[in-house]
């Protein structure tokens, strides 16, 4: 059963099948929210809000305009921006730049995790719209067209944001972390 069929069933009254949509999209939603800078401790709470909001707005979803995941990310982006704006203490919401989930043991693992920390720091330097574009493109693997719909801008703008984001990250990595040349 694809997303559209599930949505039709939910709208037809079989609400419990919505759980299948949640299971299917939760991983990419968590990735998107974490990439946006939301702390791991509160990411589930925000994701719950997003899925609940999507459920109540399901009638407004138009499958001709976008995939369900793209629509979900639009809600998530608005939610994340609202949470970040309304937070009195931004540190309670924003993630630490250096979070890594793996244990640093073998040497190559150490180097990999160092890369990860540096990439996270560079990502944190990006303006919000650049950061969300980077996450949608590299993590959620949305097409340029899908991102342009979600971000309400042209495909050219998406391309230029990706290019500029990489430049900012490259400069940050070269400047602050002792790396002398980027590929």
């Amino acid at each position: 059963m694809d997303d559209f069929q599930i949505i039709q069933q939910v709208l037809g009254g079989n609400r419990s099948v919505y759980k299948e949509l949640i299971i299917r999209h939760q991983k990419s939603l968590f990735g998107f929210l974490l990439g946006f800078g939301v702390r791991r401790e509160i990411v589930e709470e925000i994701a719950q809000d997003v899925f609940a909001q999507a459920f109540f707005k399901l009638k407004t979803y138009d499958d001709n305009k976008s995939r369900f995941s793209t629509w979900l990310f639009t809600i998530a982006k608005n939610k994340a921006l609202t949470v970040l704006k309304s937070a009195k203490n931004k540190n309670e919401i924003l993630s630490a730049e250096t979070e890594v989930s793996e244990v640093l043991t073998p040497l190559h693992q150490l180097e990999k995790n160092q890369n990860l920390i540096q990439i996270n720091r560079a990502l944190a330097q990006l303006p919000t719209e650049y950061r969300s574009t980077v996450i949608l493109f590299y993590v959620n693997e949305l097409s340029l067209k899908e991102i342009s719909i979600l971000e309400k801008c042209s495909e050219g703008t998406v391309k230029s944001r990706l290019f500029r984001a990489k430049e900012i990250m490259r400069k940050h990595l070269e400047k602050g972390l002792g790396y002398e040349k980027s590929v």
Partner: protein
Amino acid sequence: MKKVFDLSDEMLKENLKRSVEYKASEYFADDVMNRIFKQQVEGSYQLTWKERFLLKPSFRYALVGAFVLYPTLLRALV
């Protein structure tokens, strides 16, 4: 020795995906469903005016009616 930082698309994809990896609680979907049912029972989900306009015909009619009647009422008063 000069160290080269690889900032290729492949590397970005791999590293960014790892950096946002998250293992949700196995009850996450159930928690969301419970929250939805609770909000439905309590009616606690507050629709925005835009959602009300899109979803509720009565609200839509009231809004359109107000637009239609406003000039008539204004003329009657003046």
